[in-house]
């Protein structure tokens, strides 16, 4: 079977810079025009297309881009990513309902809160590797949700309601944040996706991206070549967490009410699935992966509960026939073919490394 993705990748590599900009612009225009009824009839005949464009599609894409920094770039398996989404959402909910802050004031606070949570989680745990780190992060994700469930101040199981929308901008329909029209929220999440895309691209093509990749490939060698591995792993956690937090603030502002049930472990798993099946470490791949994970169950809503079965089966099939993901980064593909992906190192492997250094 010819590899269409690799073929398109080769064409892209040969395009001159100005043609690439035209393609990027075209994609952006398509994204801006996406919330229309005619597109919706094809993409989501049995759901409200404009609503699902924001949640789950936009939200999943943003979360997947954040988790991709941790899992795809730095190679750290995080199973509790939903915690940072929850922290952003609860930050918005409490500050807006109790202290009457405005959405735009809370947004940076939510980002900083989530980043701080990432550092607090990372500082003691990033000394662990592979499976052990995965278990600790899984625990962290559950702790945040359970704390929210048991804290009366956070509304316990009922959650927090009457969360205000972002303030409107007069005379501009695209910036009227009401209850009925999801389009303004979609444009907001789209802007965030573009912003995060630029930030991540810059990180990838700098010493930071090189350090993350070096850590993924051989952490001990990276440290010995002068890479402060702990600091860079912490940066990966903080950057990933802050994107999750940002997404959480927006989510809460749109949904009016949030409950701990919005932040189930399943969401962490779905986002991780999006990153892995799209092609971890590669932004376009991760975006496509998140889109499919969010969109496919909505598209086949008319099949009722069979849709979950089909969704699961297609995930399994994809991982069998294309383990490197739909649009893999070239490096990740090479790593997988060599059977040495950065994710899920076993403890025994670390011991073997130490033996070898001896």
């Amino acid at each position: 079977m010819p590899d269409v993705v690799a073929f398109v990748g080769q064409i892209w590599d040969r395009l001159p810079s100005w043609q690439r900009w035209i393609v990027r612009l075209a994609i952006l225009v398509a994204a801006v025009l996406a919330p229309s009824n005619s597109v919706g009839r094809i993409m989501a005949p049995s759901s409200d297309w404009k609503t699902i464009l924001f949640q789950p599609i936009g939200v999943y894409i943003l979360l997947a881009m954040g988790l991709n920094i941790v899992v795809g770039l730095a190679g750290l398996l995080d199973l509790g990513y939903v915690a940072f989404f929850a922290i952003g959402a609860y930050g918005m909910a409490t500050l807006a309902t109790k202290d009457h802050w405005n959405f735009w004031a809370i947004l940076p606070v939510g980002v900083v809160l989530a980043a701080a949570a990432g550092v607090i989680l990372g500082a003691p745990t990033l000394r662990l590797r592979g499976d052990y780190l995965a278990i600790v992060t899984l625990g962290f994700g559950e702790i945040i949700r359970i704390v929210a469930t048991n804290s009366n101040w956070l509304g316990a199981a009922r959650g927090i309601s009457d969360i205000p929308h972002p303030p409107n901008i007069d005379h501009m329909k695209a910036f009227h944040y009401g209850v009925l029209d999801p389009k303004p929220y979609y444009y907001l999440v789209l802007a965030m996706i573009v912003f995060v895309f630029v930030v991540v691209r810059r990180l990838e093509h700098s010493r930071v991206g090189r350090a993350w990749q070096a850590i993924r490939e051989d952490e001990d060698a990276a440290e010995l070549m002068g890479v402060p591995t702990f600091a860079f792993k912490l940066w990966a956690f903080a950057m990933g967490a802050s994107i999750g937090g940002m997404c959480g603030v927006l989510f809460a502002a749109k949904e009016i009410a949030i409950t701990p049930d919005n932040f189930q472990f399943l969401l962490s798993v779905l986002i991780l699935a999006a990153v892995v099946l799209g092609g971890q470490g590669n932004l376009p791949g991760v975006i496509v992966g998140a889109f499919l994970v969010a969109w496919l169950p909505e598209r086949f809503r008319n099949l009722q509960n069979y849709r979950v079965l089909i969704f699961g089966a297609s995930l399994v099939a994809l991982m069998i026939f294309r383990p490197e993901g739909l649009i893999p980064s070239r490096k990740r593909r090479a790593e997988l073919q060599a059977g040495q992906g950065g994710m899920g190192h076993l403890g025994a492997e670390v011991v073997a490394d130490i033996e070898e250094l001896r």
Partner: protein
Amino acid sequence: MSEPVVELDALTVRFGGVVALAELSLSVEEGAIFALIGPNGAGKTTAFNIITGVYRPSEGDVRVIGASVVGRKPHQITRLGVARTFQNIRLFSNMTALENVMVGTDARHQTSVPGAVLGLPRHRAEERDGEAVARSLLEFVGIRGVAGEMAKNLPYGDQRRLEIARALATEPKLLLLDEPAAGMNPAEKASLQDLIRRIRDDGRTVLLIEHDMSVVMTISDRVAVLDFGRKIAEGRPAEVQNDPAVIRAYLGAPADAS
């Protein structure tokens, strides 16, 4: 040619009940090519791992240019001016040769995540300089043509050279080479010797572990011999070669240790 670049002071390392190094004292002068030899398991690589901070010594001290490295993290020691290669090549296999060397140059760079995100001029200058330095180092070790190749696709000899280039990129005062000639043919060995001399002539000090006696005897200014974690001899190559204790250690060792 007088100040010691690295000093091991009564260094003892124990792994459980095994004594890997026993009160090893060693001093390498600036600008020297110093060889550490000995049978397998004598503690040579352990000494490298102590100097670079992979292990902490059980007793004793290690000073690099006067500063103790005990308790420092490996990346901090790298910034002090120590770089190394590995006995079993440990390149970043899925990065290009150029990127491997650039990881080394980054050890000297100041800007990090904020600089990269904001695209600060200083960050961009560091990236440009890093690439230029990396390219010139690839040329220096003689593999300029493979800059864009993935490290794992390089021939064995080129991988060894790439490891040396990556280590040099951290601007070390002391370069530790762990069996650089292993697996090389005579022609490759000759050009490796030439490379090591050029590294020294650039003002760096070289400490190497090597089993190939022809290489050791040709390029070393000084040789120390380890056996079961103890230093049994030290001196100029010719002196060490005729030392009865050294001959005894080698004759009692497995055949592949020559």
